[in-house]
Structures are given as C-alpha cells and as structure tokens.
C-alpha cells in the first residue's frame, strides 16, 4: 500500500502541529548543550537527532 494522501483538507493548526513540536524540540536541543555538559549534551543529541531519524523514517519506510 502506498502512503495515502488525505482527501479531506487539513486546517492550518493541523498542518503545523507536528512542525511546531519539532521546532520546539530543536530549540531545546540547541540550547541544552549550551547550558551544561553531560546529561544536557545527551538531551541535545536526542532532541537534534529526532528530526534526522524522522527524515530517514519517512523516506525509507516501505509502506
């Protein structure tokens, strides 16, 4: 089965819900490594790594 486009139109809120979440995540990732070392660095790696994983997931998944 191929990824099905939704035929129902989405609202602006729906369109930007995930991007907004990812934007906040990016800010957390960018700032946390500035604030401290150790766990803060780890948080930063996870927060900035998630967008990369998502790109890979959506582009590579066999649907």
């Amino acid at each position, binding site marked *: 089965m191929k990824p099905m*486009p939704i035929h129902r139109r989405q609202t602006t809120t729906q369109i930007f819900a995930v991007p907004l979440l990812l934007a906040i995540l990016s800010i957390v990732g960018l700032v946390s490594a500035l*604030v401290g070392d150790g766990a803060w660095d780890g948080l930063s790696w996870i927060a900035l790594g998630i967008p*990369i994983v998502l790109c890979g*997931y959506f582009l590579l*998944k066999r649907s």
Partner: protein
Amino acid sequence: MAIVSGIVVYEPSMRKLKFGTYRRDRLRVVRWLDVHNLTGIVLVMWMLVVGFTGVINTWAELVIKVWQFGQLAEMTAQYKDKSLPANPGSIESAVQVAIRAEPAMKPAFVAFPGTIFSSKSHYAVFMRGNTPLTAKLLKPALSDAETGVMTDSRELPWYVATLLISQPLHFGDYGGMPLKIIWAILDIITIAVLITGLYLWLRRKSGLSVERVVVDASAADHRPVYTS
C-alpha cells in the same frame, strides 16, 4: 528569507497531505517535492537558528571594533595617551590578579598591550565561566602592564555577548563529538533541501510545474476503477 517563504508555501502544499508523506511511486518532481517539504519543515528551526547566528557572525569584526572604541576605550581612558610600556611586568602576576578578582572563573586568554583586545598599557586577562554557556561569555580584567595593578574589569556589553553566544550556535562545536556529527548530518540534509528546492524552482520556470503534475496525477488516481 528563503526559509520563511518556504514555511509560507508549506501550508497550501500540505493541505491534503499527512505530515511526512513521501509518494515514492510518483514522478520525480512529486518525489522531490515531498523530500523538500519533509526535510525542510523538519529542520526549519535549526536552519533558522544557524542562518541567523551566521549573519551575526559576519558582523564579528564590526562588533569588536565597536567594543574597542566603546567599552574598552572607556575602561582605559586615563591611559589613552601613553605609549607601549618600556618594561612590561609579569604576565603570570596579571593572570593571578585576575583570578583573585574572579575566583569562580578561569583565564581563557591574555591580550598583550597594543593588540586589538587591549590598550597600549594593559594586559587584558579574559576570564571565562565553567558551563558551556558562561565559557563563551568572557570578562576582561585589565591590569596595568607596568605596575601589575588591576585597573578595571567589566562584563562584556550585550552586543559582544550576543556574538559570543552566536558562534557555537552557528558552528555546532559545543556539545561534544556526537553533536558535531549530528551537525554534519543536518548540514547535508540542508544541502538536500537546497538542491530539491532549486530543482523544483527551475522546473517551475520551465513551465512543468509540480502543481500541474500533481493535479494530473491525482486526476488519474480518481478515475473510477472497474473490477471484474
């Protein structure tokens, strides 16, 4: 600018598509549009921050000049007509004086008399803090190079602080090796966003716009299907 316009066109383009849609069995334009939309929107905040801090970094020279003629000139006003010290004192003692003044900080570097980060008569010991953030925020302690007496020490003004914070956020060199690797991958994905965007734009100019292709293709999708 390009990023902001990308966000604006993301909305109409995604009206009928779920987040993360990749139509792998469609024509190249459609696939590249999906790649562009997905990677672009996922990285948008990172690209904005890196882009904006990059712009700030291009002002580095100007910012340092402003500091030099502003705060630094003010801090060393009573020395401004002096020439270079004939018998400069010990750098070590200038560093020790600075450490005594700011026991919670560590010396980052020492600017010699006559260089751009100091006056003609001072050792400027730049002190830094202990977290990655405060390590970037320097505080100069100026010591008279002849007498070894500390004459002034002030926090750097907001515009220099902004520059110093912008540098790690632009270069990504502040969270250990994993962050550098993540940064490199993000850079590569950004290049992919640029290339796909350029391709889509050139394609549009040549009249074979993706809208056209998408409309044709979805018209084909909606053809009634007869099964036997």
